[in-house]
Each structure stands twice: as C-alpha cells, then as structure tokens.
C-alpha cells in the first residue's frame, strides 16, 4: 500500500516532461494569485479568518457572495478569452487574430445591448436571454469574418482584409451601441454603461454558476481541437492529406469561441486584448504547438485577468477601475509594438 502511494507520489513530484512542468508552474502561479486576490479588496477581509469562521458575518457574506464568484468568473473569462484567442490565431494561421480585434466581442456586445434595450423584461429569463444574445452576436460576426477569409484565401492580403473587417465591425457595433444608448431609457442606460466598460463587478452566483459550466464546455471543445489545429498549420490541402477534417475543426472552434466569448461579453462587457496578448507571449516562450499553447494560454489568461482585476479593485480603493480599461491600456501598446515589429521584418 505504502509502495503504491510512494510510486504515485513520486510520479506526481517528478515532472514528466516540459508540458507537465509548464502547466504545473502556471497552475501554481494561478493558485497563488487566487489566494492573494481572495485576501485583497476594498474591505479588509482576512481569508484565514473567513475559512476558520472567525470573521464577522457581514464580511463572511461579502466574501462568499461577492468576492468568491468574482474570482471564479475572472478565472473563467480570462481562460476563455485567452484560449479562444489562441484557437483563432491557429485557425487563421495568424498571430494577430483575436476575438476583440476581429469584432467578435463588440458584435456580441451589440446584440446584448439590443437585448437590454428592446427585449429584456424583468423576469428571471432575462439573464439567459442576455447569454443567448451574446452567443448569437459573436456567432454572426464569426460567420461574416469567415466568409471574408474564405473569399480571400491565404496570404498577407487576407490578413489585412480580416483586420479591416474587424475594424469595420467594431466601428459599426460602436455606432449601433451609440444609437441604442440614445434611445434607451434612463434605467437601461445605467445598466448599459455599467456593463459595457468591461468589468467583473456583476458576478453573482446565479449567473456565474451557469457561465462556469458553459465556459468549461467551450474550453473542453477547444482543448479537443489542439492536435488538429497543429495539423492545420501545414496548409489546408497538406493537412487534409495528413488526416485533418478542416471543416469539422472550423465548425467546432467557431461554435466554441462564439459560445465562450459571447457569454464572457454578456457577463462582463468587452475585456480587450487578453486573447491577443497571452497566446502571443506564451508562443514566444513555448513554441507554436497547440497541445501546450492552448492549456497554457487558458491558465495564463486566467492568471492575468485575476491579477488585473485585483489591481483594478485595489489601486484606487474604495473606487474601482473597470478591468477592461486596464487590459486595454496594457494590450493596446503591445499590439502597436507587434505591428511595428512586423513591418520591420517585411
């Protein structure tokens, strides 16, 4: 018995290969970040006291009902945005693809805003309506972008067209949002602006629980595509000959990213650049294979969002900076840097 336990222990202790090492390291970092995040906030709550049941009831309530779901939502949204960024970059065979840049997020945002302004009633179904609207919006944009990509074929011209299409969709969605804000009632307007800036503030168990399940499903679908995404990098004809059913792969990735990103946007608004930043940095470190890159991006995205959100909560406490602003401030310059470096290489 002890021998078995020991064997098990040593197998767990000695990292088998680089993949295990990297993923274990990222998981550990994420757990540390979670502990730090769970113990920080506007309200000085001691994590230790909460777990021991020694904290006062109000603090305990705040921790369980506000902070914990927020942490979990941060993990899920961060993992989803970065994971879908990695998957889309693989699908388009291009490091600049990203749910925000291609307009998926703003498309989802527009549909959610439409839902809030025109269809929402105060019933319990309203929440799930918002989910569905986000999913539909992301799916629509995904199909448009794919249609354009298909017509363009490969090559660098196609990349420019994709980014321009994303720009057009982003602008259009922005304008649509403006129109909606104009015709919205005061109450709706308040809701729109609270949600639209990209923040994890709205995390409640009621929404978070369902979102966690659906996002986990989307992440699982993406993980199942890792090997096939690797194959796709050979080019479609060669990959087909190597055993890849490209259309099945595309459908799966499109459904998973639309579902996941749509949900994220419905819950948190647009949190930009995570999907660009995380996979890109990790690819420089880990190489292009999606078998490692996808799970590492998910962990890395979760880590980055949890850290960014904790900073957003605490820098200006008791006030709170929308975390979307923070990630955009981080990601925007990095994206510009990428573009400049690419141009020099050409």
């Amino acid at each position, binding site marked *: 018995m002890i021998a078995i336990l020991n064997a098990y222990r040593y197998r767990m202790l000695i990292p088998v290969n680089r993949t295990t090492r990297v993923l274990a390291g990222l998981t550990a970092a994420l757990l540390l970040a979670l502990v730090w995040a769970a113990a920080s906030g506007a309200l000085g709550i001691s994590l230790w006291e909460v777990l021991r049941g020694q904290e006062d009831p109000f603090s305990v309530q705040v921790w369980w009902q506000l902070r914990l779901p927020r942490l979990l939502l941060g993990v899920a949204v961060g993992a989803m945005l970065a994971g879908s960024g990695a998957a889309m970059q*693989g699908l388009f*065979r*291009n*490091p600049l693809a990203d749910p925000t840049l291609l307009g998926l997020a703003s498309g989802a945002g527009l549909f959610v805003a439409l839902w809030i302004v025109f269809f929402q009633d105060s019933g319990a179904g309203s929440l799930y309506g918002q989910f569905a609207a986000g999913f539909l919006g992301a799916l629509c944009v995904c199909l448009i972008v794919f249609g354009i990509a298909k017509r363009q074929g*490969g090559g660098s011209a196609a990349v420019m067209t994709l980014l321009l299409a994303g720009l057009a969709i982003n602008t259009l969605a922005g304008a649509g949002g403006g129109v909606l804000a104009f015709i919205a009632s005061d109450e709706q307007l308040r809701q729109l602006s609270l949600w639209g800036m990209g923040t994890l503030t709205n995390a409640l168990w009621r929404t978070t629980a369902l979102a966690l399940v659906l996002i986990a499903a989307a992440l699982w679908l993406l993980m199942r595509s890792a090997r096939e995404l*690797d*194959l*796709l*990098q*050979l*080019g*479609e*004809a*060669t*990959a*087909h*000959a*190597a*055993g*890849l*059913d490209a259309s099945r792969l595309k459908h799966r990735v499109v459904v998973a990213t639309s579902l996941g990103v749509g949900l994220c946007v419905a819950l948190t608004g647009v949190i930009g650049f995570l999907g660009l930043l995380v996979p890109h940095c990790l*690819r420089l470190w880990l*190489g*292009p*294979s999606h078998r490692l890159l996808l799970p590492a991006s998910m962990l890395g995205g979760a880590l980055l969002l949890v850290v960014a959100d904790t900073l957003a909560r605490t820098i200006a406490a008791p006030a709170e900076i929308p975390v979307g602003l923070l990630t955009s401030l981080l990601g925007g310059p990095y994206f510009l840097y990428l573009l400049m470096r690419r141009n020099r290489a050409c």
Partner: protein
Amino acid sequence: MLTLHQAGLTNTPAIAPLDGTIRPGELLAIVGPNGAGKSTLLSMLSGFRSAEQGELHLDGKPLRAWPITELANRRALVAQQELPGFDWQTNELLSLGSNPSKSLVAALLDDLDITHLAKRSVLSLSGGERQRVMIARGACQLLSRCSPTAKEGGILLLDEPTSALDIGQQQRLMRQLRSWATQHHMAIVCVLHDLNLASTYADRVWLLHQGQRIDHGLPNQVLNPATIAKIYAAELQRIEGGTHGKPLLALAP
C-alpha cells in the same frame, strides 16, 4: 495502388476524364505548361478535391469512401512552397501528422541532408532547405503510419519538389525519391517542370495540357521534341545519348 476510372473535374479548373494506374514502387512524373492543371490533378489524386466525374480507387476501395484519418496512412501530400503557420522547429514539424520514432526522424533528416537543421526554426530556413524539410515531413507521415507488414509503402504526392533546389540538391532528391520508391514500395507522384529530370528519373510520364492528359507512357516516348515544342510554345533541341542513353531536351538559342 491508385486507379483512375474516367476520373475528372468539371468545375474550373477542370480536368478531362482520364484512366490510369499508379503502382507501388514507381516514380510517376506529371509535366505540362503553366496552368495545365498539374496541381489540380494532384489534389484530385490526393482526394482533397473529390472527382466530379468517374471514380478513383485506392486499394480497390473508392477514394471518397476512405475515412480521412485512414487515408492519411496511405498517402501524403507536399504542396507547393507553402509557409507553415507559426514558427516550428524542423524536428517538431516533421512529426506533424504522425508519431514517428526518433530513429525514423534521424534517418529522414539524413536522407535529405538536413540533419544540421533539426533544431532550426522553419521560417528561418532558406527556400530550398524548407522545401526539403516539407518533403521529409511527407515521407515521415507515410513511413511512420504505414503498417510495417504492408506490402505497399503508400503514395507520396509532391508538387514541384525541386523548384527551390540547386542542381546538386535536385539530383540528391530525385535519387532519394527513387530509393524510397524501391526500398519502401512507395508510389511517388511528382509534378515537375524540369523535363530532363523527368526523363532521367521517372518511370513514366503524364503530359498535361489545358486540363487534358494528352500523352502518357515512358519518358523517351512522351518527351519528344515535336510535341513538347508545340505544347510549351518553345524551340527545342533534342540531345541524344544523355545519361543512360536517355534523351535530353535543351532550349534552342
């Protein structure tokens, strides 16, 4: 063994229906002017574009009835000069599409004279180096996925495998292809622009023009100056008594 029964494509680019057999152990060259449909024919042979007329059979079973993953055990494709997405190491790239043993990878790297590039990133290689890496990947897929007991080594489809190679590398590659064909009973189909390479190394030649196969057979029958000059709109001289008595074609000054 791949057999074509009046197989063709009707949508542009079209391929007129043709019959034919591609046997294990042989090297078949597909030649023809630019835009003749060589790459399109290759993608039909690969099953990437399924035949719109007639039928292709691989080992007696219709090509379209093969599951994609099983088909990958029997044939591999090396497309024309396509850059892989992202920056793979040569080693990693070789094992895309299969799970090769270390010794197989080492042997293939050695076969194609790219052992020194094993740890290099593929995007940093020169065109000719990268071309040999991609060919090694195709061979790797077949050799590691074909069952060792199989009498046939599968079909390797190569689109202009020598386009970026210097003459020394062209010779080494063509010799290597011949040796794979005999050693592993592999059928090798090459789209070639250099007619003299086709004449020197191919067992048989298919000559394509405007989507039609206008001639096929032994290289010295198909590659006669009169036909070639007409099809390519070029002035040619035939030089007799090339290597092994095979005729060579040269451009007239």
